C-alpha cells in the first residue's frame, strides 16, 4: 500500500471518536475485507487500535477509494461540521422526462467533471473562446458548458487524466447519493484532506454542496451535476446552514408534516396563565385575550411543530430611514441607511417563534423573518420598492 494511502487511512481513523468507532467501521465495506474479528473497541487505547487497523489495511492493500469511502461515512455521521449550500437545478420547459439511472449518473458525473477540469486547465478563463452573449456574464463555468455542449466529446481527449480529481460515491438513505470530490491539478495528486461533498437526491432538482475555499471548482462541479442529472441550469440559492437535514426538510417541505396531522386548535383557555388571583379580573381577562391572540398568530405562522434548525439569517438593508418619532430626522436625505443585520442562534426559527409570546416582538412577526422556510433563503437584500 502506498505510503500516502496509509497516511490517509490513519488520519481518517484518528478523526473518529472512540464511541463511534465500531458503528462507523462496520458501515465501511472494507472493514469486512480486512477480516477483523473485533466486535468492540471499548477499553482499548485509540492509538493501538489505529495502529492495528492501519497494518491490516496495508496487508489487504487498501486503495485511496477505500479510505475515501471511510471518510464519507465519517462525514455522514458528522455532517453538522460542514456548512452546506443549497443548489437548485432546472430543466428547459418541454424537456423529456427521463428515467434516472444511478449507474449512468455516477459514471457520467465523473467523466464530465474530469473533462471539465482538464478543459479548465487547458483553457483558463481568459483564453476560453468567447461565445454567445448569454454565457459571457456567467463566467468560466458557462463557457465550459458551451464548449462541452457543442460537442462534449468532440475535443480530442482520448485519455482521461485520472489524477486531476478523485470522485467517490456512497448511496445513502432516501435514495440520496453522497459524492466526495478530492481536487488535484495537472501536476499534483488530488488533495484528500480538503474534499468537497455533494449530497444529491435523484429525480429532484436539489443538491447540497459543502462549502469550501476552492471556490473556482464549484462551477465545474455544478456543471457536472447538471449534465449528469439531465438538467439545464444550476443556481446557488441564498440558503445555507450546518444542519443538512433541516435544509433538506425545508427544501422538500417535510418540516410541517407533524403540523398537518396535529390539531392546532387546542383550547388555549385551559392553559394556566400563572397570574396573581388578587389581580383585577378585567385585567386578567384583557391579558388573556392578548396572550391568546399572540399565541394563535404565532402558531398560525410557525405551526406548533418543532422548527427546522438553522443557525443564522442575514439581511442587507438598503432602505431609507423613516421614523415613527416624527421629528424630521434624516428627512432630507435621499440615500438609504445601509445596514447589515444578522440573527444568530443555536436554533434560529425556534428563537424567532418565541419572540412575540415573550413580548419582545409584535405579533405577527415581520414577514422578512417568517418567510425563511417558505422562501428557502437565509440571505436577503432588502431595498425600498
Amino acid at each position: 500500500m502506498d505510503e500516502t494511502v496509509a497516511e490517509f487511512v490513519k488520519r481518517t481513523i484518528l478523526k473518529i471518536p472512540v464511541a463511534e468507532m465500531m458503528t462507523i467501521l462496520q458501515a465501511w465495506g472494507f472493514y469486512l475485507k480486512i477480516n477483523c474479528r473485533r466486535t468492540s473497541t471499548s477499553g482499548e487505547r485509540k492509538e493501538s487500535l489505529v495502529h492495528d487497523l492501519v497494518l491490516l489495511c496495508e496487508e489487504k492493500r487498501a486503495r485511496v477509494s477505500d479510505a475515501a469511502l471511510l471518510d464519507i461515512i465519517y462525514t455522514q455521521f458528522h455532517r453538522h461540521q460542514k456548512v452546506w449550500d443549497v443548489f437548485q437545478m432546472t430543466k428547459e420547459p418541454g424537456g423529456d422526462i427521463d428515467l434516472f439511472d444511478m449507474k449512468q449518473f455516477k459514471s457520467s458525473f465523473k467523466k464530465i467533471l474530469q473533462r471539465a477540469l482538464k478543459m479548465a486547465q487547458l483553457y483558463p478563463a481568459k483564453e476560453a473562446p468567447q461565445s454567445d452573449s448569454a454565457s459571457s456574464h456567467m463566467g468560466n463555468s458557462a463557457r465550459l458548458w458551451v464548449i462541452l455542449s457543442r460537442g462534449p466529446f468532440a475535443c480530442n481527449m482520448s485519455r482521461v487524466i485520472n489524477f486531476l480529481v478523485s470522485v467517490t460515491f456512497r448511496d445513502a438513505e432516501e435514495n440520496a447519493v453522497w459524492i466526495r470530490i478530492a481536487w488535484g491539478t495537472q501536476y499534483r495528486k488530488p488533495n484528500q484532506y480538503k474534499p468537497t461533498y455533494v449530497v444529491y437526491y435523484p429525480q429532484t432538482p436539489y443538491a447540497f454542496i459543502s462549502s469550501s475555499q476552492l471556490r473556482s471548482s464549484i462551477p465545474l462541479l455544478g456543471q457536472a451535476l447538471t449534465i449528469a442529472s439531465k438538467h439545464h441550469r444550476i443556481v446557488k440559492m441564498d440558503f445555507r446552514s450546518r444542519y443538512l437535514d433541516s435544509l433538506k426538510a425545508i427544501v422538500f417541505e417535510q418540516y410541517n408534516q407533524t403540523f398537518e396531522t396535529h390539531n392546532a386548535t387546542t383550547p388555549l383557555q385551559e392553559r394556566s396563565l400563572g397570574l396573581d388571583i388578587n389581580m383585577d379580573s378585567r385585567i386578567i381577562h384583557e391579558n388573556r385575550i392578548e396572550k391568546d391572540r399572540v399565541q394563535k398568530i404565532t402558531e398560525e405562522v410557525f405551526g406548533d411543530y418543532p422548527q427546522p434548525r438553522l443557525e443564522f439569517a442575514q439581511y442587507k438593508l438598503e432602505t431609507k430611514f423613516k421614523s415613527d418619532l416624527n421629528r424630521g430626522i434624516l428627512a432630507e436625505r435621499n440615500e438609504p441607511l445601509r445596514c447589515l443585520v444578522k440573527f444568530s442562534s443555536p436554533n434560529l426559527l425556534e428563537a424567532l417563534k418565541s419572540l412575540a409570546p415573550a413580548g419582545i416582538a409584535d405579533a405577527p412577526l415581520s414577514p422578512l423573518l417568517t418567510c425563511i422556510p417558505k422562501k428557502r433563503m437565509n440571505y436577503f437584500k432588502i431595498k425600498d420598492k
Partner: protein
Amino acid sequence: MDSYHTPQSIPRRSASSRPKEHCLGATPLQRRLESVRKQASRAPASPPRRVPQRRSQLREDVDPQKVAFLLHKQWTLYSLTPLYKFSYTNLKEYSKLLSAFIAAEKQKGLAVEVGADLNIRVSFSALRGVKGTHRDPDAVLVQILSKSPLPSESGEVKVLWTGWFCCVFGDSLLETVPEDFTCLPLFLASGAETSTALVGTWFQKTFDCSFSPLAINAFNLSWMAAMWTACQVDRYVATTEFLWSVPCSPQSLDISYAIHPEDAKALWDSVHRAPGEVTQEEVDLFMECLCSHFHRHFKIHLSATRLVRVSTSVASAHTDGKIKILCHKYLIGVLAYLTELAIFQIE
C-alpha cells in the same frame, strides 16, 4: 478647523431649556428624585459631556511606540481605589518586589501560569503623557516578561502579561483624596487572568487599594456608541455595530446590527445640535432612531433586549468590561470616559 475641539476642559452646560435643567431649581424632593433616578440608571453623569477630543492631549514628549501597543488589543477593565504611598521614584524597586512576589507564589505551588519556567521579570514604567490634565498622575505600565534562558537570544523578550493604570480627567476624584494617595482609578489588563489576580493581590497588599471588575452597562454602551459615532475618523476601519442579546427565550438569540459608518454619522448629525457636546437626550434619540428603524423592518423591540457590545472605528466595548481601542486620535477621549466610569464605581 475642527468643530469638536473646544478649549475648555470642563463640560459646558447647554443653555437650552431641557427638563434636566429645570431640576436645578426644583424643590428638595424633586432633586432627591432626580438623584435616585441617576443612581437607578447608574449614570455617572447625566449632564452634557464633550465628545472625545479630536486633537489628543498626549504631551509631545510621549513615545508614540509606547502608545501604539495600547491600541488594537483587548483589555479587561477594572476600577481601582487610590494607591497609598505609591511613588514614581520607586518603580525599579516595585519591579523587583513584584518579581519576587510572583516567584514566591509560584513556589508555593499555587496555579500560576506566568510562563513555562520561572524565568520571568517584571517591569514597571511610567507611560508619560497618557493623561488629560497636568493634575492627572502619569499612567503606569506593568509588564511580566519572559527572561530568555540563553544570553545570546537576549534580543527576544516575550511579553507574558500587560497591565496599565491611568487617570484621564480624573478631577472629581483628585479633589477628594488626601496627599499620600495616588489616583489611578482605571486599570486595564491583557493576559492570563491568574497573572492579573497575582498582580492585583500584590498591589492590594502594597498600596492598600482594591480592584473590582468594571462592567459597562447598556446605558453607558449607548453613550459610547453615540460619542464614537460623532468622532471624525480619517478612515473608517469598521462599521458601527451593535450586538444585542435576547433574553428569556428557550434558544438564545443574538442580533448584530451594523450600520455603515457614514450613514451612522449622518443619523447622528441629524439628531445632534450643539457642537462639541453630547446630551442625554441626543443619545436616547440616536438609539431610539436605530431601534425604530429596526422595528420597522423586523417588528422586534430592541429596547426589550440587552445591548451587549458596541463597536466603531474608534473603539469597541463589551458589557463584560472588555475594550479595544482602535483609533490613536481618540485614545485620550476613550480613556476619559472609562476613567469617569471607574471613578463612579469607586464612589
